[in-house]
């Protein structure tokens, strides 16, 4: 674990891709390799023996252990996520990224509980992954929008994250780390976990938190920022116009019985001294 830096991955992190022979796995592992990620193996039960993007495909995670993998990207469909995650955890991997949307919540609960017991970090489900420009990425964020810099971003969305990364890059800044937490009601890494990492990361000078309606993770992170974070933090919350009781695309983005509203989150951010942008394009202006 000594090679893993403060913010989870470097270009040396040995990554396997479970489900690498599938459409998503094949395309995104290729993009990851172009970005500099050290992909050491693919795993696809029943399809082992060949190669994808020049990387050998194995039958099980156990078969890849001689390559000493540290992290796994799960590019398998939702019904297979629980099994693939348990396989990775049981074989000693320390970072698991789950791409799939619509993973049953009971499956996620078990994965996250087991990961906590074994000291494993889970990113997702329903997440675009983690990108550390100049080092590596695990996930599906588009390569061309990044530039190495000192802005760290945490978000519950996918496309909106890219939009914001591009705006930050176009404004002349660059990114230290970008993490998509995932749009489900229960995910592994939360805003609170990530803000702690960003606060300690020497490469990060400014932080952007992109939250949305539903749950209370933004409020928890805001309390931590208020008490512990000296770096400037900019926030943005989506779902101000969302009617209560309607799931706004993400399973986790829902206002239930008056909790999880955009107002509550914006207020928590402002109380913590976080500068809140009205529009995604306004974020770079607040980063100075």
């Amino acid at each position, binding site marked *: 674990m000594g090679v893993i830096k403060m913010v989870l991955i470097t270009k040396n992190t040995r990554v396997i891709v479970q489900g690498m022979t599938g459409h998503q796995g094949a395309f995104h592992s290729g993009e990851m390799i172009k970005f500099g990620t050290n992909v050491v193996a693919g795993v696809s039960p029943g399809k082992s023996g060949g190669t994808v993007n020049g990387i050998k495909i194995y039958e099980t995670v156990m078969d890849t252990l001689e390559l000493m993998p540290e992290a796994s990207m799960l590019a398998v469909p939702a019904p297979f996520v629980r099994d693939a995650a348990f396989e990775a955890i049981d074989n000693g991997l320390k970072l698991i990224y789950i791409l799939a949307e619509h993973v049953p*919540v009971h499956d996620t609960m078990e994965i996250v509980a087991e990961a906590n017991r074994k000291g494993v970090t889970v990113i997702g489900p329903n997440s675009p992954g983690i990108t550390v420009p100049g080092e590596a990425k695990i996930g599906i964020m588009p390569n*061309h929008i990044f530039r190495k810099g000192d802005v760290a971003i945490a978000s519950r969305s*996918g496309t909106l994250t890219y*939009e914001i990364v*591009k705006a930050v890059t176009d404004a002349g800044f660059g990114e230290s780390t970008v993490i998509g937490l995932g749009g489900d009601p*229960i995910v592994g890494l939360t805003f609170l976990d990530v803000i702690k990492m960003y606060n300690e990361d020497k490469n990060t000078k400014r932080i952007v938190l992109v939250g949305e309606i539903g749950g209370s993770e933004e409020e928890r992170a805001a309390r931590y920022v208020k008490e512990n974070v000296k770096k400037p933090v900019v926030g943005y919350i989506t779902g101000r*116009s969302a009617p209560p009781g309607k799931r706004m695309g993400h399973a986790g983005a829902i206002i239930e019985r008056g909790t999880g509203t955009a107002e509550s989150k914006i207020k928590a951010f402002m109380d913590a001294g976080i500068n809140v942008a009205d*529009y995604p394009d306004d974020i770079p202006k607040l980063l100075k």
Partner: protein
Amino acid sequence: MNLYEYMGKEIFKKYGIPVPDGYVVSDINEIRPYQYPVAVKSQILSGKRGKSGGIKFAKSQEDLKEAAKTLLGTTINGLKVNKLLIERMINIKKELYLSITLDRSSKGPLLMASPDGGMDIESVPDSRIIKIKIDPLMGYSDYISREVSEFLGLSGSLKSQLGTLIGLLYNAFKKEDSLLMEINPLIIDSSDNIIAGDSKVIIDDSSLYRHKQYIFPDPEKTELENESASKSFTFIEMDGDIGVIANGAGLTMATLDALTLHKLRPRNFLDLGGTDSTDIVEDAFSFVLRADPKIFFVNIFGGVTKADTVANGIVAAKNKFNIKQKIVVRLSGVHEDEGRRILMDNGIDAYSNMNDAINELVKLNGGN
């Protein structure tokens, strides 16, 4: 998926949780000889059903027919009553509250119980509610029920009945991929039997592939929304007049927010999701078109969903459906130049910046 009371009680029965004797009717002719008195309960997905006149009582078959005639087909709290649950009346000695729900912050199930059953749990003070987090891997164990019984002051047979019931409820919660199983009131009757007086059950939508029996049209959704359930995009109707198509739930929400901040009113939420198919874009247009918006706004950040694919889909939809409304497009990301060229060749303006596109919408809306 929110289940009706009678469906929740069918689940309870399947797992061995006591429920009152009863049957369901959707037509007055289905009423049959029964033991009276009975409660006649409208099957709608709404709280405060009793206060809104959705529950009646009948002492005889004539009474019951009268009540059924009044309730069936009426609208209560905006929802149509299609079914009634007819249940034998219970002599209530005490009403308790019991639920297991998904707790987002502890990332696991949360059991809640209170001696103050029969009212909205939100109005019960915290000191009267016991909350126990359940580890999803350890699951339920009897000590949890002992803690609950002690809090509720139950002993003897009631304590053992409750213990069994909580174990069964947890089993049902887990096996049915539930997000909420609530029994309010949980009734202690005059013979000291514990019975589930009501049910509120929510099943995780993402798990429906392994619980197909719970897939039915959601009465809280509009016809178009229910029809879109089989599509790869997500469609939600709103009450404005700007038809929105965007990609990614976060970007779509941000688009609606930006419109609202500019005093424009979105007609809908439509997240295309990740797609590289012009057919899906065309299909998305056909849905929004049926909602009859005044203007279309397409907001795309190209990635997996490429900007030129979307542009081709927009042009195809415009021609196929003969769309007369103005279409304002914002394209950014992968293949944006190509996409913009395709649109310009077909007389559609495309912006690269979201704020510029919205300013154009403000102008168009004001001029209308």
